[in-house]
């Protein structure tokens, strides 16, 4: 390779670096250019420290993970008890909601009948993970329903325990249900996936409140399952973490660090973070305050 060609090669490399960065930054600017598509005010109940925590001595960036639940989810295979409180024991559930029925799956391009037929004999060609749009609801009817259900269960268990005094099993279940209701009321995430679709405008028409409902990208996971079992689950959010900008990092880092080291019965460090989603449905932190 002669020197002239080599020089052009290096210049092409530099042009590639510049063009790639321009492309990425242009996408960011486009996402944040217009008014946000949605803006949610979240707290320590809906946000936890990101997964890549790094070594304690490192001053790495701070990111927060969305702790979302799924409306109409199937119940957990175990009961919450007093030791399960707090983010560190957050369990996302099965993520197999009842609203993700055959008709809804058909609108998402997934044939539920075909998936059930495949359970009879293993075959190739089953559908795979697919990126769709999810609707996230913050502190809305889905949370109200979950809270009402937890309180109802606590009341029922308390009544059962009162009707059969001296039965240790009843007392234990009543305490567990009361703990679960308390956890639901004060600590559980209020951020729920309530719907899924392919058309953004159609979803926005159904959920017009941009301060309560965010439309985000996520992965839907079809499954081969027999009749009576769910054939799809909410896989994950495509962007499941949001990086905290430098100007809010000091405030949040100390709160999050305090929360990680708190003793179990102490109250959690409280903060509020406003997250916006832009025209490309990419999130960013708009504001953050400690409480």
């Amino acid at each position, binding site marked *: *390779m*002669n020197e002239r060609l*080599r*020089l052009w*090669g*290096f210049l*092409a*490399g*530099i042009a*590639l*670096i*510049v063009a*790639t*960065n321009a*492309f*990425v*930054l242009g*996408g*960011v600017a486009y*996402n944040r250019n217009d008014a946000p598509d949605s803006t949610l005010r979240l707290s320590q109940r809906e946000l936890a420290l990101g997964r890549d925590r*790094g070594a304690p001595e*490192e*001053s*790495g*960036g*701070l*990111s927060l993970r969305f702790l979302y639940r799924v409306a109409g989810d199937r119940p957990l295979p175990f009961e919450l008890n007093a030791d399960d409180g707090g983010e560190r024991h957050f369990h996302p559930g099965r993520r197999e909601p009842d609203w993700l029925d055959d008709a809804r799956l058909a609108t998402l*391009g997934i044939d539920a009948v075909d998936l059930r037929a495949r359970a009879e*004999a*293993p*075959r*190739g*060609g*089953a559908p*795979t*993970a*697919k*990126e769709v749009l999810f609707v996230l609801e913050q502190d809305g009817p889905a949370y109200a329903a979950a809270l009402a259900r937890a309180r109802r269960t606590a009341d029922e268990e308390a009544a059962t325990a009162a009707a059969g005094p001296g039965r240790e099993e009843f007392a234990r279940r009543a305490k567990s249900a009361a703990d679960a209701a308390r956890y639901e009321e004060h600590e559980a995430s209020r951020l729920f996936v309530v719907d899924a679709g392919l058309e953004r405008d159609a979803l926005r028409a159904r959920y017009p409140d941009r301060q309560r409902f965010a439309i985000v*990208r996520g*992965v839907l996971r079809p499954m081969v399952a027999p009749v009576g079992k769910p054939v799809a689950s909410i896989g994950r959010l*495509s*962007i499941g*973490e*949001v*990086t905290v*900008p*430098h*100007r809010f*990092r000091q405030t949040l*880092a100390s709160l999050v660090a305090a929360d990680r080291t708190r003793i179990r019965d102490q109250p959690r460090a409280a903060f509020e973070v406003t997250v916006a989603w832009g025209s*490309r*449905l*990419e*999130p*960013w932190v708009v504001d953050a305050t400690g409480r």
Partner: protein
Amino acid sequence: MTSRSTAQQRADDIRAFRTELERLRTEGALVLSDEQRADLVRHHEQLLAEFARSFDIDRDAHARQLSVGMRIASFLGALALAAAVFFLFRNFWGLLAEPAQVAVLIGSSLGSCLLTMWVRKRDPTGHFTRLCATVAFACFVLNVAMLGEVFNAAPSDNVLLAWAALGLLLAYLCDSRLLLAAGILCLIGYLSARAGAWQGVYWLDFGERPEHFLPAAALLFLLPQFVDHRRFPGFATVYRVLALLALFLPLLVLAFWGRLSYFDIESTTIEHGYQIAGFALSAGVAWLGVRRDWPAVFNTGVVFFVVFMYAKFFDWWWESMPKYLFFLVLGLAAILVLLVLRRIRGATREAVGS
């Protein structure tokens, strides 16, 4: 002579020629006149001096050994420096505001690329150039990945294409097989993700269908046939071996998990089909390696033929046979492969002789 590797190859040939000429003279098979001998020596010395001046080649076995040591040191140094850049960013990342982060990321990519360009002119051996090029590639990978993280950009398979482009560009500019392999792996990732996306699979989950790798494998295996790589020794081999890995590893998975295939037929039929394809293709690749004199291709074919065979034996007999008998069968199978290969070797020698 346009590259160090071709100059080094010519110098090695001259050294081998001199050794053989000396043997022929001792055996009386070829005796050159003093004049011929002097002309030959003068010509070779002129060539070697020119190569040494232009490319800093290894003129003898001792220099060659040292050169291998430098190559290893350069490889390890490049990896260590790339890791140092990563941990340096990680250590001080939280202290920087976003504009400074962007400036550091873009500056490190551009700076390391310009440094590679500068070193390239002053480093005839290429060891320092390759080291700088590897760091430049690592900086660019970090640049794009961390820029996406800072601004919460949606993950995109296009970054694989950008990484592949810079990796391949630097590999050809700096004669680096390590960067070539990195670029090819990114390209395999990109092509496989695209193949998946065209079928409606979310690109990050393209691994759910191992067949996504097959178009990339075919394309990369054929590429050295259409692009002349004689000035880049070893590059064609890297293409072929990585393409074969992208072919055989998915075949191996599909041969035992037919449910992962695109074919909408019974799993067992798919598995049997891919097992037969695995045996046939690995044997075919080994044959092609012998036929075209591609040792690495031959070795890859043989290795995967044996792997397919062992995997099938495991499937058939691991549960039912006593373990000593199972491993005895494996050993006997290996001996059988050896006998077949010896036979092929003999046939090849006869063909060359005739």
